[in-house]
């Protein structure tokens, strides 16, 4: 039993842990892409908005969209073999809860850096809510700008809001899956990546 205890401690040391993380990274190019198909992964801590988004996304007729839902990364190892190649990873952050942002940040560690070249997108809900502290939105903005990813704002309560969010996700997804002739995900991300206004640290007038 004591050996098990020692092994446990060893397991928790940095070296072994980093190997463990690296093995469970979500990699962009380790599988073959699907023909005339696009795979999107929606990561959301609350698991609410992703369902309505998924329903709207699969209604697209021009191309077959496969939607996978997750609460956080790393993804369970059991599905590793059957899971197809993911073209776009969307982190859905609900601004009214701090847990949502922290969960997204923690999930980022399990993402291969190859994804950050245009295959990651941040989607933020409830940005208009009065109870949201401005620092959280600023923190999300800074994160998206540091990773050169697009930041989308969505409204999840009305069906119209879901439709608009779906449309925008689909346009980014089509580029990531290679379905748009002259554009690649990297090129699109250089055009759509989030930027932080220079006066973000100054207090806004309320």
């Amino acid at each position, binding site marked *: 039993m004591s050996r098990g205890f020692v092994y446990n401690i060893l397991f928790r040391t940095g070296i072994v842990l980093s190997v463990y993380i690296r093995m469970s990274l979500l*990699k*962009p*190019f*380790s*599988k*073959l*892409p699907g*023909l*005339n198909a696009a795979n999107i992964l929606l990561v959301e801590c609350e698991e609410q908005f992703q369902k309505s988004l998924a329903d709207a996304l699969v209604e697209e007729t021009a191309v077959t969209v496969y939607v996978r839902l997750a609460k956080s990364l790393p993804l369970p190892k059991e599905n590793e073999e059957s899971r197809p190649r993911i073209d776009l990873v969307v982190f859905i952050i609900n601004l009214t809860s701090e847990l949502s942002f922290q969960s997204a940040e923690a999930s980022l560690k399990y993402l291969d850096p*190859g994804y950050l*070249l245009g295959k990651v997108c941040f989607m933020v809900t409830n940005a208009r809510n009065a109870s949201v502290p401005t620092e959280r939105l600023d923190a999300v903005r800074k994160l998206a700008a540091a990773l050169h990813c697009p930041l989308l704002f969505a409204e999840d309560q009305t069906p119209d809001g879901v439709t608009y969010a779906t449309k925008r996700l689909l346009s980014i997804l089509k580029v990531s*899956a*290679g*379905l*748009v*002739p*002259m554009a*690649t*995900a*990297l*090129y699109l991300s*250089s055009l759509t990546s989030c930027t932080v206004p220079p006066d973000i640290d100054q207090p806004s007038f309320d």
Partner: protein
Amino acid sequence: MDPSDGKGSLNLMVEAVALNPAADSSNAQKDTPPTDMLRMNQQMSNQCFEMAVQLQAGKSKRSCSTSEAERDLPVYVKELEGVKTLNFNSTLTLHRMQMWHAIGETVKGNYSGSVALKAGNDRCMALCSQIKQCQQESKDLQDEVTEVLKKRLEMKRLIDEKMKEMEDLKSKKEDGFTEKYKAAMEKGQENLEKYRKLGVMTQNVLRGIILACRVNWMEDPTLRDIAMTLEDLPFSD
């Protein structure tokens, strides 16, 4: 991560699909498979390109600070956009040339549609020359309109000048007139005052004389008339 292996098997997969269009029997129509396959081919080439980019990035690893990279990034993006625009324009030009070449070939050879094409071409030429004529006419008319407008503007300017002159003259004349009038009025009034005082004084004197003589002026009609007129004038101040 072994994208080069993936690329090889990708090519095999695309070839397999190309050799067995029957495998794509999920699309029932006969003419959609080629376009679908072209689209899929494009998609695969896009994916291959992305993987090649990843390989390239993996190969040339040099250490540089993030601030340096951030500085260089916009420059590269601008360059990339410039090259893309150039490429797009060149592709458009190429397509145009291809179209024209195809049309030329069709018209020259005696294909089934070439008679209709020639007729269409002639009609286009006729319409184009008509268009040119109309454009020329409209240009001439526009020039004429501009000339008329210029003349009108000139007229307006002259009118404004003349009006200004008239206003100046009018104001000058009125000023002179009122001044002279005022002077004359004052002089007249002075004279009036003077003669009025004279009159009043004369009447007083006459009244005094009549009273001093103790004559009964009411009986004599001429004297009575004179005395009546004396009383009409009020006493002077």
